[in-house]
């Protein structure tokens, strides 16, 4: 400040001196010298000042001040408590279903039922799940998300409720709570973002649509131009195919890795591998014995699943809203090793059991013009032929386990959807279902609607 005053004083002096030059012709030389001296001093002081200003300007401004400045300028500073309300979004879904077989008796041939809301669903009009999501940052270190699914049967289910770290260094993210496991491609995708009205058969048979458990996830992304993601999860192992809760520590473990990148400006891809291990304890299922009488059987043992997933998207010039071709597929293989109890409430026969089962799907969705997409999907499962010691030893005939008889279920589905905007979608889907345990051919027609209101959600790849 002092320097400014001094410069100002010199300036004032210079101004005062200037007119006198014209008047005092005698002292011109003297004055000129004095003026020159002043000018030099003035120049050097200005130079100094400039240097000071530059120094000050280049010094870093505290980030808090900068951010505050920006927010102030944007004019959106709130003072009410509601300003901290989380982002809320609500997805409404529903369908009209027309099937040629009773959906109540639909069951995938050759596979122990996975529980879950699998199959073609109920006939006629149905309210689907209404997904209510709340999300916000907790503090500078964590964010939190909860999605509650309110079902058409008037039940509220916590679909996901998790915290996620935002401040861990080196590409690590920790997630905890209840969440869809990060393996594969479709497992993490919420139902409203599926490209078909239902999940592929392999997801229905292996996980009852989607695998989620209460637990922790650690994920790491490599510092490379190629997308490399590695994740590990540990959970309570409660979700199918696991059932175990009567142990401390880890009851269900998952490992997964994804690679991804671009092939030119229009094509992107991602591929992955995964492995899951769960423990089942008295995982019961309904069957009938060789005399067609209902029995309850149960499996206890280890269930391990591995699989691969891949997706390729071709988007001419990257314009998502206009034209896009998606091709994706996943393959899974499951081995279960343990003991099978026949008729838990009656005979209670128990002996070794081992099965190797697999399944895959391949689907393609083509956005052929803005708002319109068409899709084709093929599903295939191989139930394998389990080795059941009770049968091999001759204690029971193979017909005592109809659910476990070998089968190769498959299904073809086609769909057409129309999305008037980013927030609404109407879909028609037709499926030729050859998966039913009773061997009947099922033809399933479905009309579906999806509407999103509230916060604009961001979609994963």
């Amino acid at each position, binding site marked *: 400040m002092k320097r400014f005053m001094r410069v100002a004083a010199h300036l004032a002096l210079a101004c005062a001196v200037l007119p006198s030059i014209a008047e005092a012709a005698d002292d011109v030389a003297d004055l000129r010298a004095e003026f020159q001296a002043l000018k030099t001093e003035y120049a050097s002081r200005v130079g100094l000042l400039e240097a000071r200003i530059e120094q000050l300007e280049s010094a870093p401004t505290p980030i808090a001040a900068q951010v505050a400045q920006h927010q102030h300028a944007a004019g959106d500073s709130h003072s009410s408590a509601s300003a901290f309300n989380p982002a809320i979004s609500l997805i409404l879904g529903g369908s009209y279903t027309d099937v040629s077989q009773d959906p109540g008796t639909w069951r995938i041939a050759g596979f122990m039922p996975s529980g879950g809301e699998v199959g073609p669903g109920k006939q006629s009009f149905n309210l689907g799940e209404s997904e209510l999501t709340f999300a916000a940052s907790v503090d500078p270190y964590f964010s939190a998300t909860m999605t509650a699914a309110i079902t058409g049967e008037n039940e509220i289910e916590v679909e996901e409720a998790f915290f996620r770290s935002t401040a*861990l260094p080196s590409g690590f993210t920790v997630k905890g709570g209840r969440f869809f496991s990060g393996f594969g491609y479709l497992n993490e995708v919420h139902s409203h973002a599926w490209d078909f009205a239902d999940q592929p058969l392999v997801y229905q048979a292996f996980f009852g649509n989607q695998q989620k458990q209460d637990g922790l996830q650690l994920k790491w992304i490599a510092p490379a131009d190629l997308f490399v993601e590695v994740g590990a999860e540990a959970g309570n192992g409660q979700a199918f195919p696991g059932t175990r809760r009567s142990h401390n520590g880890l009851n269900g473990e998952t490992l997964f890795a994804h690679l991804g990148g671009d092939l030119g400006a229009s094509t992107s891809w991602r591929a992955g591998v995964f492995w899951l291990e769960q423990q089942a304890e008295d995982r019961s299922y309904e069957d009938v014995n060789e005399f067609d009488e209902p029995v309850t059987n149960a499996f206890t043992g280890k269930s391990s699943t591995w699989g691969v997933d891949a997706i390729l998207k071709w988007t001419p010039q990257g314009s998502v809203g206009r034209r896009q071709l998606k091709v994706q597929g996943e393959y899974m293989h499951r081995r279960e090793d343990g003991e099978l109890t026949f008729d838990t409430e009656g005979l209670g026969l128990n002996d070794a059991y081992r099965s190797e089962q697999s399944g895959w799907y391949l689907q393609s969705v083509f956005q052929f013009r*803005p708002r319109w997409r068409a899709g084709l999907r093929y599903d295939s499962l191989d139930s394998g032929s389990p080795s059941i010691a009770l049968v091999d030893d001759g204690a029971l005939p193979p017909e005592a386990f109809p659910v476990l008889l070998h089968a190769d279920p498959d299904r073809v589905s086609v769909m057409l959807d129309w999305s008037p905007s980013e927030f609404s979608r109407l879909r028609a889907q037709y499926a030729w279902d050859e998966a039913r345990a009773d061997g009947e051919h099922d033809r399933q027609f479905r009309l579906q609607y999806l509407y999103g*209101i509230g916060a604009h959600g961001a979609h994963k790849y």
Partner: protein
Amino acid sequence: MRIFTRGAAALLILLACGPAQATVKILATTADWGALATELGGDRVSVYVATNAMQDVHRVDAKPSLVARARTADLVFATGAELEIGWLPVLVQESGNPRIQPGAAGYFEAAAGLNLLEVPSRLDRSLGDIHPQGNPHLQLDPHNIALIAKALTSRLAMLDAGNATYYQQRGSDFDTRWAQAIAHWEAKAAPLKGLPVVVMHRDQAYLCHWLGLLEVAAIEPKPGVPPSAGYLGQLVSKLSASPPRLILLNAYNDAKAANWLSERVHVPVVTLPFSVGGTAEAKDLFGLFDDTVNRLLAVIQ
């Protein structure tokens, strides 16, 4: 358990291989921000642009390659005002990179600190794809670019304090050249003032505002809502009564509706680059405005 230990060991090895960088790595959401970051950062920054001029930046896939870039970025340079809301939050969230989280020094939004046009007084999606904070297509007013350049210069100086003087110099050099260029464009484009035009979407609002072009109609009835045949019919009768001089089209737009209208009302369509890279001439920010002004003038002369 053994698998977990092995996995952890593999992770550590990969971690140790992480490359060391000397430059500030910038992930720019659009080619315009990429160009500005290069103007201001020179050889002290390395810039990766997430989209190209032919893309609708509102609708982009959160591709794995972009997550990978977000992971290593020191600075995310976005438009803000919810333009990138459908994909950028996913990149930032999935990146595992604390430097670029919103609120951190490495997260920069161009719209912050600007007075945006068309801040809606009513928020309702029946009005189409509206943005609560105002129209986010702000790059087509060069005065905005000047303000963003100042803010970005101080952000770069803060992130890379060792090169602060370098950024300040480049910043003031750009500021001078840009001010001269604006004066040149404004003088040249003076005849465009008050020219009645038809726009495609709300994304030309800043250009019209800057050059004083008079928007008489939009081909999209509401932002993000494609025109119906009925609406286009109404537009033809309305425009035939008082014809505009030009129909403005962006390079990334589908030209169908604009050409259809052009034939009916006998008004030429002028395709503007909209973004750096939108035309062969729009190689950088200077080229973007040179070409925009030239193309507008060429049609009316």
